[in-house]
């Protein structure tokens, strides 16, 4: 192969691309990931958090249903952090490409989509661009009750009113691990040295986090990302949400249940619905 392509390959190897695989058959919807994230990232809380449309969450747990009547009903929980999309062509992430002030950026050395709170001026264009609704806006001032500000994590700066925030894959933990490695004169960052708060807190062990480009990391084997195709999973039963949009998320899901996998793709879902509809019609005719 030509020198250039070899150089490219070496580049590729040097680059990290952190990603997440969530096993939907293991997830129990307990909510630990959400709470762990809140406490790790100084996410504010209000007296009434029942309006989920104005509530700030870096990771949300959806409850999917197969919409069948009792007792054929099945449900499945789907945790959703920021997908850290690689974008159609690398870096052309839906939100990053539209931010007028470069307040959010795709770091091609980690595959993490950053958010600079002190830069964001709150136009919310990124929120409109994100098909996953992974971004939250600070509609009000964050207020910590007397004494509770003591629990704030110094590694993450609290946000001011009027800016957008989102999951950062606990970037500060990456920095910590990187600095530690650098200090110890190592290049590579051990898999266990950098794990997100949600991964760490999951009692069901449903979340796997690591470097998709690193064959040594478990996630690489569990997903087998096709790096030529924006990291499309080669592994059976592994899928991404809205694959067809070409956002190329770094968050993968796996489930052995077909109806769950269909939930990630509008067309599959539709076709599936049509099939079942046809089926029921037949039954009707027979009846």
């Amino acid at each position, binding site marked *: 192969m030509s020198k250039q392509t070899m150089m490219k390959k070496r580049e590729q190897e040097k680059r990290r691309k952190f990603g997440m695989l969530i096993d939907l058959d293991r997830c129990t919807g307990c909510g630990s990931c959400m709470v762990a994230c809140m406490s790790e990232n100084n996410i504010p809380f209000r007296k009434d958090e029942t309006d989920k449309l104005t509530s700030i969450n870096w990771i949300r747990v959806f409850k999917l249903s197969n919409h069948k009547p009792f007792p054929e009903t099945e449900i499945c929980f789907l945790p959703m952090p920021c997908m850290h999309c690689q974008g159609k062509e690398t870096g052309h992430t*839906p939100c990053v*490409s*539209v931010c*007028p002030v470069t307040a959010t950026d795709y770091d091609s050395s980690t595959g993490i989509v950053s958010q600079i709170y002190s830069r964001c001026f709150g136009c919310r264009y990124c929120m409109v661009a994100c*098909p996953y609704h992974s971004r939250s806006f600070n*509609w009000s001032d964050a207020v910590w009750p007397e004494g509770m500000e003591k629990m704030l994590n110094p590694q993450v700066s609290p946000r001011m*009113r009027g800016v957008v925030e989102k999951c950062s894959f606990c970037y500060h933990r990456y920095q910590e691990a990187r600095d530690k490695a650098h200090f110890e004169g190592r290049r590579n960052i051990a898999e266990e040295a950098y794990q997100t708060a949600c991964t760490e807190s999951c009692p069901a062990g449903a979340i796997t986090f690591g470097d998709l480009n690193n064959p040594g990391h478990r996630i690489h084997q569990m997903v087998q990302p096709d790096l030529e195709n924006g990291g499309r999973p080669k592994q059976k039963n592994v899928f991404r949400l809205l694959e067809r949009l070409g956002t190329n998320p770094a968050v993968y899901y796996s489930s052995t249940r077909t109806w769950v996998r269909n939930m990630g793709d*509008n067309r599959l879902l539709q076709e599936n619905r049509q099939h079942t509809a046809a089926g029921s019609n037949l039954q009707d005719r027979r009846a």
Partner: protein
Amino acid sequence: MDTTSGTGRLNHCSPRRFYLQLLPVFVLLTWGIYAMIRVWALGLNQTHMNNVYGFALWIWADLAIIALGGGAFFTGLLRYILGKKELTAIINFAVLVGVICYGSAMLILALDVGQPLRFWFIYWHANVHSMLTEVAFCLTVYFVILNIEFLPVLLENPKLRRIPFLKHLGHNTHAIMGLFAGIGVFLSFFHQGSLGGMTGVLYGRPFAYREGVLIWPWTFFLYTWSAAAAGPCFTLLTMKLTELVSGRKLVPDRVVDLLARIAGWMILSYTVAKTIDTVYWAGTTTVAAGFSWTRFYSENALFHGYWILVLEIIVCGLVPGLILVSEKGRIKKGLLFLSVVLVVVGICINRWTLVMQTVAMPVLPFEKWSLYLPSWQEVATTLIPLCSGIILVALSYRYLVLFPEENQLN
């Protein structure tokens, strides 16, 4: 005395009566300003926007206002670049409307951002790949140009003319107006387009996403086009309203007819283009994204149903287009202005759906449609442009020469 207004026109109403008539508008404006202050002081929790409706009433108002303000650049293009002299009768007014629209648009943007004091980051840390950056740059510069274009009109005021410098300034700026108008047209083409690009580039939002050429999605061109069509219509509409209020004839019929005819051809051609765009989008773009276009209109048919397409493309596009291009249609003034209204409404609907339906529509299969009702603060602030518009037009009409041929006509 009667000639106090100094525009050399007689039978002006007394200042007292003039301002009394404007009083309700001022009241409404005060309400809007109160809401505006609340929003700036207390933050965007004053609105009913949420994490799904990141864009809402305000952004729609922005897009609509700027489209309608397009009359200034398009009339400018016809008058100064293509040299349609007869449009002199209305160009001043068109520019005034433009100034008002763009001024309001910028005000609303200042309200809409969460950190207004950081507004200048958009220039300072500009991300040139963002359509919004393009909009912001062009908008600001073009607003300056509009003011320059309006300067001569302002300096026509005899009181100001007494100052030689200003008199000459007015004359000189007018002399090189072609240059300014030229830049204005150039910029308008881009920012009108970029506004369309804003939603067009959202490849995460199948309802809004469009393919295109280079960095520009089709909506980029459609927006410029529709603005060129709707702008003049809005100018004509506001002019007509001014005529009704003042009870005087302000612009000769041939001018109205000319502008209406051009607008007619624009809207008609736009409708054709829009139809092609829609068909291609429905048949190809959305399918590639894994959607069937019917879903966009059937799942929430009451608020976002097929009726929107019919209303926007047929009723507010094709119909007025056909009327305006036909001699017979334009002869009947009632019909002419009806279709002008339709065009204006049509463009507002178009901007509405592209903002609202885009965010209302769930992309994830397991999310639901979410609906939104603006808070009174949003409504009140959105009325500011209307009120300030009325007031500015009234004042300008009273103290400036907006319609050069007014006196001959009366």
